[in-house]
């Protein structure tokens, strides 16, 4: 049972990451591959504040969100000048640079040692070391973020985003300040990732830079591509699938020396097959 609860917590965290990234990639059409960086900043803010100062979990989450909003706005401004594939490459760059900071600014982040002993949240005396309680907390945040995202996508703001995705030049002609929209959704998405980061840090009680590199951003991107871009439920389904898949494969009886590598082969082949036969993802409306 604990195993299932653990998987459910991981799933919820990644669902938050998927839903938030979908706002930028699926709705605004911006191929961002730096989500892990904001996830990481949220995680580190919580980790540092909870282990070195008296700030509580929720306080640290708010602070993490503030820091991420400031930083992602700056990054978003720079990125708004890039188009298409270059946008993606620019985000690769930012992720790498922020990862290097996690790794090398040792006075702040403890670098490769990571930060251990991160305490659980304190709220009304609820024992969050009990994973079931933590799961409820995570699900509450997932619910909030899901509804906020839904609200955004169904609002006029959301319609402008979709228009930017379909044909940015056209909508500029109508007088819309497209950079404003792009930067705004970018920092909103980043802020949500920071929330996921805070939850992750407190749940695992230990974080180190390795959880926030480029490969993690790619993982989150694959979640929403598989689940279906521009579909929030798709992002959740994608997270479910990608968290469950490696676990399911643990039970398939491959011979022990090649078991782990075989799982990678299966994972890669599944990606290819899904792209070949259902590229809009499981629930996508937006055919990539």
């Amino acid at each position, binding site marked *: 049972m604990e195993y299932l609860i653990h998987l459910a917590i991981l799933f919820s965290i990644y669902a938050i990451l998927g839903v938030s990234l979908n706002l930028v990639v699926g709705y605004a059409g911006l*191929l961002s591959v730096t989500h892990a960086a904001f996830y990481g900043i949220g995680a580190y803010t919580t980790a540092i504040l909870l282990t070195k100062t008296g700030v509580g979990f929720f306080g640290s989450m708010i602070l993490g969100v503030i820091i991420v909003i400031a930083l992602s706005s700056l990054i978003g401004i720079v990125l708004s000048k*890039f188009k298409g594939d270059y946008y993606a490459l620019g985000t690769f760059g930012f992720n790498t640079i922020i990862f290097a900071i996690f*790794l090398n600014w040792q006075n702040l982040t403890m670098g490769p040692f990571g930060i251990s002993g991160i305490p659980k949240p304190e709220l009304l005396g609820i024992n969050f070391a009990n994973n079931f309680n933590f799961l409820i907390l995570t699900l509450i945040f997932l619910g909030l973020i899901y509804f906020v995202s839904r609200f955004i996508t169904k609002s006029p703001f959301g319609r402008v985003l979709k228009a930017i995705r379909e044909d940015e030049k056209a909508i500029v002609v109508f007088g819309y300040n497209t950079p404003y929209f792009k930067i705004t959704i970018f920092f909103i998405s980043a802020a949500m990732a920071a929330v996921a980061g805070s939850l992750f840090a407190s749940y695992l009680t230990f974080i180190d830079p390795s959880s926030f590199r480029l490969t993690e951003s790619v993982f989150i991107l694959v979640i929403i591509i598989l689940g279906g871009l521009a579909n929030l439920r798709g992002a959740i389904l994608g997270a479910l699938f990608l968290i469950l898949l490696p676990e399911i494969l643990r039970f398939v009886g491959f011979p022990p020396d090649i078991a782990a590598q075989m799982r990678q*082969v299966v994972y*890669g082949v599944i990606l*290819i097959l899904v792209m*070949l036969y259902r590229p809009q993802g499981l629930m996508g409306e937006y055919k990539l």
Partner: protein
Amino acid sequence: MEIVPQLILNSIIAGAIYALIALGFNFIYGATKFFNLAHGVMAAISGYAVFYFAKTLGSNIYFAVIFGVALAGIVGYGLDKFIYLPLRKRKVSNMVLLVASLGAMTALQAVIAILFTSRFKTLSQNIGTQKLFEVLGGVITQTQLITILITVLILAGLVLLLYKTQFGKAVRAISDDEEVARIVGINTNKIIGRVFFIGSALAGLAGILIGFDTGIEPTMGLGLLLKGVIASIIGGVGNIYGGVLGAFLLGFVENFGIWKISGEWKDAIAFTLLIVFLIFRPRGIMNK
């Protein structure tokens, strides 16, 4: 100041490797306009092929190299024929191709790991006793010298191919506009298939040279690819000379950069260079 000549040499050596990857990548990108994540794995494929034939089976080294390079070309060609081409026919977007290539990369790396284990291996026979040459106040090994020479030769060869052959003309036409090229009667799919063969073979060659210089491991491809891509972009995507120029520039910036800043920031420096170019000169140095 006596460090400077060696740093210059180091930059050239690094640049030569990046150039080989960039040449292959640029060649393929020019014709297909998509970011093939599996390009780096071709380097590993050739490296391991040579390892198997030359070291394990003991066959003649030149034969092993030729076979290794050809094998990478064949695999690249196969990926195009069975995965990328069907996807292109359905007019999917670049993101789908990107994810499909990610799947291919994951699966191929895992297969190599199954066959050869993940241990780092070196292709050279005598360890640490390479012939050294003193050049301009610095030291360079025989393998490194050969690498630089081969890069120059390949560049020359590709230029000849692109500008003095019918095939090259067709490739250039496709790079300009694939639709028009098809209308004019060029069998674009066949040409692109060959482009994949050549480009992948080039990556394979780079892998073999790296194998002799330092060594091979199944996951060596991605890091190489990213550097190759940075080189291509700063030099000018799709431009043959651009890739090489960008590669050497990257080599210089990295090596002189860590002269003044500590070694652990190397990757951050490379990506900062990329972002600077993306902001101020996204078309790269060579493109107008």
